[in-house]
Each structure stands twice: as C-alpha cells, then as structure tokens.
C-alpha cells in the first residue's frame, strides 16, 4: 500500500478522521440546502419563474450539470450517513454499562437526538425524491406547464402540498432538520478546529439563525399552499 492510501485508510478509521468527513460532507449538504431553498422560494414569484428555474437546472452543462450535482450530493450523503452510523456504534460500545442516574449539564436535546433526527431526515429524503424527483405519483408526473411545453414544476409543488398528510410529514421532517442543523452547523466549526474563545459565541448564533432560516423558508411553502396563499392557478 502506498503511504497516501495507508494514510487515507488510517484517517478514515480514526475517530477524528471520520468526524472530519462528517463535517466536510456536512458543509456540502448545508450549502445544498441554501440553494434548494432559494429555488423553492421562486414559488412565491410564480409559475413562470419556478418552471424556468427547473428547466435551467435540467439543461445546465447540456444536462450533465444536474447529474454531476446529484453524484456529489449522493456521495456526500452516503459518506455522512455511513460515518455517523459507525461513530454512533463505537460511541455506544464505549459506555457498555449505563449509569443508573445520569444528569446532563451542558448538552442540548438536538445534540442528543442527532442520530434519530438524521435517520428521520434520511427516510424523508427518500420519500421526497420519490415524490418530486422520481415522481411515482403519475398525476404529478403528467402535469404540463400551460404556457410552454414543459413539465409544470410549480403545479407539482402546489398539488403535492395540497395533500395534508404529505405536508404534515414534510413539516415534521423539516423541524427535525432544523434541530439537526442547529447542532450540526456549529459542530462543523468545532470539528474543523475553527472554534475558539473568540469565535465561540458567533458560531452558536450563526448556527441557530441558519437553522431557523432553513426551517422557516421551507415550511412556509406547504403552509402557504394549505392556507391557499399560493394556489394552482
């Protein structure tokens, strides 16, 4: 084995190495969320803007762009999940005998449920992809833009969220994502060694604000649709 390969293996097998992987992939995923949200908010502008944006994405780099993005995201997603599951398993093993009484002094609920919020988000993402990307619902897949001959993304979103159970699941999942981010974003800085006495407070505030923006931005859409503020026509 070359020294480089051996170092990579050792890095991956070490606890800190895995966490660095989680943090780096976390940056990609956190960044993706911001982009995704910006696109989604076009719903408020209207059908044309939304569908233009969808078309732009589909034709970026002659159609290759979206596949490159999907490959990067999928890789990050898988690495993020595999690393955290492995870390969680070794963490559980490190405390073989549980305390009879354990009191927390600093940690937060969000930090303690990271693996559960994460796994719920995983389930949600699978559903979400089937729903809006693979479009297993033929009714949503067949929607056409009434002005230009293309798929009606705008219509799909509105129709999709008019289904109350779907919207509720979406809101619950996004709430857990908010919790996940409130701990995760700050953790990126700590894991990459960017947190210090001077930056500690700012990182915490940034992490909370970011999580809140993502949460409010995303859930505003199904809520607006259910309240009839955004409608199909």
């Amino acid at each position, binding site marked *: 084995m070359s*020294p*480089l390969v051996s*170092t*990579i293996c*050792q*890095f991956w*097998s*070490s*606890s*800190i*190495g*895995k*966490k*660095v992987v989680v943090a780096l992939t976390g940056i990609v995923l956190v960044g993706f969320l911001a982009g995704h949200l910006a696109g989604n908010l076009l719903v408020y502008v209207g059908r044309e803007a939304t569908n233009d944006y969808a078309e732009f994405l589909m034709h970026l780099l002659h159609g290759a762009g979206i596949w490159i993005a999907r490959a990067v995201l999928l890789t990050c997603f898988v690495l993020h999940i595999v690393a955290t599951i492995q*870390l969680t398993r*070794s*963490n559980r*093993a*490190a*405390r*073989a*005998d*549980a*305390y*009879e*009484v*354990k*009191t*927390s*002094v*600093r*940690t*937060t609920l969000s*930090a*303690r449920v*990271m693996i559960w919020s994460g796994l719920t988000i995983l389930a949600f993402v699978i559903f979400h992809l089937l729903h809006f990307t693979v479009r297993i619902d033929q009714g949503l897949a067949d929607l056409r833009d009434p002005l230009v001959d293309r798929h009606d993304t705008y219509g799909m979103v509105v129709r999709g969220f008019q289904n109350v159970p779907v919207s509720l699941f979406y809101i619950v999942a996004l709430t857990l994502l908010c919790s996940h981010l409130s*701990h995760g974003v*700050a*953790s990126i*800085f*700590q*894991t*990459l*060694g*960017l*947190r*210090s*006495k001077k930056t*500690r407070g700012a990182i915490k505030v940034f992490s909370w604000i970011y999580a809140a923006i993502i949460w409010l931005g995303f859930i505003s859409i199904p809520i607006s649709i259910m309240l009839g503020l955004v409608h199909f026509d």
Partner: protein
Amino acid sequence: MNLTLKIWRQEGPDAKGQMQTVEARDIPEEASFLEMLDIVNERIIEEGGDPVQFDHDCREGICGTCSLTINGVPHGPDNGVTTCQLHMRKFRDGDTIWIEPFRAKAFPVVRDLVVDRSAFDRIIAAGGYISVRTGSAPDANGLPIEKDHADQSFDAATCIGCGACVAACPNASPMLFVGAKASHLNLLPQGKPELDIRVLAMVRQMDAEGFGNCTNHYECEGVCPKEISADVIARLNREYACASVKEGVA
C-alpha cells in the same frame, strides 16, 4: 444531616455489580463528600461489614485520584471542584444521593467505585511528551515565549487527568483530556518539532483504548474540575487533520 446513599457495589472486575442502599447518619455539613464516606465506612466496619472502596489521595483537588459520579454528575453538583473538595453543605438533610463509578469501557471497574484509568497513561506514553534527554537542555531563557501562548498553554496544562470528561461524555470520549495534553505541548515552541507525530500517536492510542469520540455535547467542559475549555478539542481536531494530510502527501 441524615442521607440515603445509593452506592454501586462490585466485588471485582469480573463480578456483577448492583446498587446498594446505605444510610448515612449524623453527617456534619462542614464535612467533605469523601469525609462523609469515611464516616459511613467507619460505621460499616464497626458493624462488621465491608467498607465502600473509593479512590482518593491528596484531598485538595490536585492529584486527580478521586472520582465518583454523584447524582449523575462526575465530581458532583458544585462547579470547578473535584469530589474531595465538594462539601456536604451542597446537600440537604433527607436527600437521596446516587454514587456511581466513572463509567466507560476503557475505565474498567476494579472494585466498588474504584476504576482503572491507566488508559490515560498509555495515551501519554504514545506521544504526550517533549523528547528532551536530561542534561541536554539549553538555557531556560534562551527561548522567549509569547506570554499569550504561554498562558494558553498553561490553561491546558491545568488538566489533572481525573477522567471526569470521559465519565460525563455521553460517548465516553476523552477528547478534552487528550486535547488538553496535546495543546499544552503544541502551543509551546519546544513542542513544535514533535507536534505532528505527537497528535497522530495520541489519537491513535485513544482510539485503540476503546473510548468513544467527541460529538460536541460539551458535557466535559461542564464537569471539568479545572474548567478547561473545549477549544482544546477544536485545536486537536485541526492539528490531527493537518498532520494526517502532511503524513499522506508531504
């Protein structure tokens, strides 16, 4: 004051342990927590029982020998103190107090509340030092050190190696300990030549000992009797990542 104690009793490393209820009578509130246990043990001995075994030595908060998880918090409810400096006036008459060992797979129980923390020694042996042979040192003032660096190094060096960070961490991670030990040396110019190999070796030994890893709960910071900041963990993360890159490509 009178108290009800729920104490972990375990005959030996391989024995099965359980909680035992022990009454503590007529405890003066000026007594330290360990003196309260002394009083309880004295009575157990008089009554022909087996006294509770617990680790302690200097009883002034510096040797790091005493441990105990008290009501679920390593070193108990007071901030910035070890168990030996915790005084009974922090409790109220009639309280029930749960006393357990520092629990972690890497800290096996020896007996009752005594655990084996030799994993910490092995982490230091792996690289937690500056290699300087006795007699080969240059003049002490030959190497001025920026006061700010010296102070930060000192803050890390106050670690007493008690293991409360491991006991408090939901993942039984010793990152506060390892971070503090590494930062103490890495922040000093004397420590720079061995920085990379030190960090790689200490982290690898830490993983080999069966500790968990840090997921940024900061429980360690909250119970550390020397109030060491988790900034040392951030520094260790960064130094480990950089050292790995250098090891792989440079």
